[in-house]
């Protein structure tokens, strides 16, 4: 019997080390590790200029106007979301879809609301449904989200919206019909809304419109309100004023009687 020496075993193991090569599907495995362990980002055009959009496993997590540098963006994302973010290789049509959504087209985009409270989530969902060309006040969003008194809380959810344009927080305005804040640049909100065909100045004067032919009062941008003939238009600064004048709230845009 020849005894196997330690050197022989060591040599065999070294040979094994050279012989073990990762399979031919090496590259997809690297991609999968990155896709599962980090989120990915890409640039997309939008009415706010080029934006960086981050997509995770469950949908869009973050969108921001072009940051000062990619490094700053990656660091900020890490600090906020606790995840690494890498340039997207393959988004499976997601980037086209999101670009379309950012451009204001009506496409369904999955948004990842994980980490949000149920209230924040409901607010984001309500706001997602405000159509292009229309605006709603904070108090209406609060009512629709099932928390009628939480108008201010709605404001802070909007201020922290991680996905502007995709969840159109610019379509939420102050209860008096003025456009209100938008990040560091309220003018931007006005420009975005004008682009979408919202008569910003008119709404600031009178956010509610009614017609005696039906006895119904609407948000000024409700599609029903826009069909009212000029001679029948009655405008109101507040809902109590409209209700006092005998009008009842529209069932489509559901203005809040107490607002």
């Amino acid at each position, binding site marked *: 019997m020849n005894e*196997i020496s330690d050197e022989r075993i060591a040599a065999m*193991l070294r040979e094994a080390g050279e*012989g073990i090569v990762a399979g031919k599907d090496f590259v997809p495995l690297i991609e999968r*590790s990155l896709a599962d362990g*980090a989120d990915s980002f890409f640039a997309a055009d939008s009415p706010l200029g080029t934006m960086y959009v981050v997509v995770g496993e469950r949908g869009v997590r973050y969108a921001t106007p072009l940051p000062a540098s*990619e490094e700053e963006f*990656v660091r900020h994302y890490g600090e906020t*979301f606790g995840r690494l973010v890498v340039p997207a290789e393959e988004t499976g049509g997601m980037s086209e879809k999101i670009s379309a959504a950012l451009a204001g087209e009506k496409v369904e985009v999955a948004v990842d609301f994980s980490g949000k409270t149920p209230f924040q989530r409901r607010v984001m969902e309500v706001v997602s449904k405000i159509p292009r060309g229309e605006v709603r006040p904070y108090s209406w969003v609060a009512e629709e989200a099932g928390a009628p008194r939480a108008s201010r809380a709605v404001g802070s959810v909007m201020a922290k919206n991680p996905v502007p344009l995709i969840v159109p927080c610019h379509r939420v305005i102050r209860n008096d019909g003025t456009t209100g804040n938008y990040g560091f640049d309220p003018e931007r909100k006005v420009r975005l809304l004008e682009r979408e065909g919202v008569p910003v100045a008119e709404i600031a004067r009178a956010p509610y419109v009614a017609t005696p032919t039906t006895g119904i009062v609407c948000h000024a941008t409700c599609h029903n309100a826009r069909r009212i003939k000029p001679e029948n238009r009655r405008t109101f600064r507040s809902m109590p004023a409209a209700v006092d004048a005998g009008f009842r709230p529209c069932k489509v845009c559901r203005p809040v009687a107490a607002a």
Partner: protein
Amino acid sequence: MPKTDPIAERLADGDPLAPRDLVERHYAELYRYAFAMLRDVHSSEDAVHDAFVNALEALGRYSAERVRGMSLRAWLYRITLNVVRNRVKKNREVAVEEVPVVVEGSGGREGFMDALDALGRLPERQRAAVALRYVLDLPYAEISEATGWNENTVKTLVRRGLGNMRTFMDIEEEKG
């Protein structure tokens, strides 16, 4: 004072290409390590995948300062060993049948598979130490860093591991 890892610096600075470079730089060696421990292509691929996902997720949570000073290579080895350990535990629980070993890209069983089979019969710490020393060809100082065991412990584990392997392989030779 150990030199800082350039990828650790780039991760801390927010270089968006750094995570990919990290995975590419270490994929092959971690796969080799996992395969030496598990001897199965799919389990090894899964183990390396899980190790990288754990690592990337952790790096996402860590502060820039913490990342900057990390020895990423040793840390990745430690994570891989943990993943392998958990897989072995899980496999033992469901009593999975031994999967026939085929090294990808080769016509079948290579001669060195006997050595890997003998390695696979070692207790876990000996197996890890011997694999890192010879399959990965790491110096003792790095093995110590990659396992968290001190250098003398590693040396002892390697010596005992080789001794045990010799016994296993002698018996096999006698039988054959």
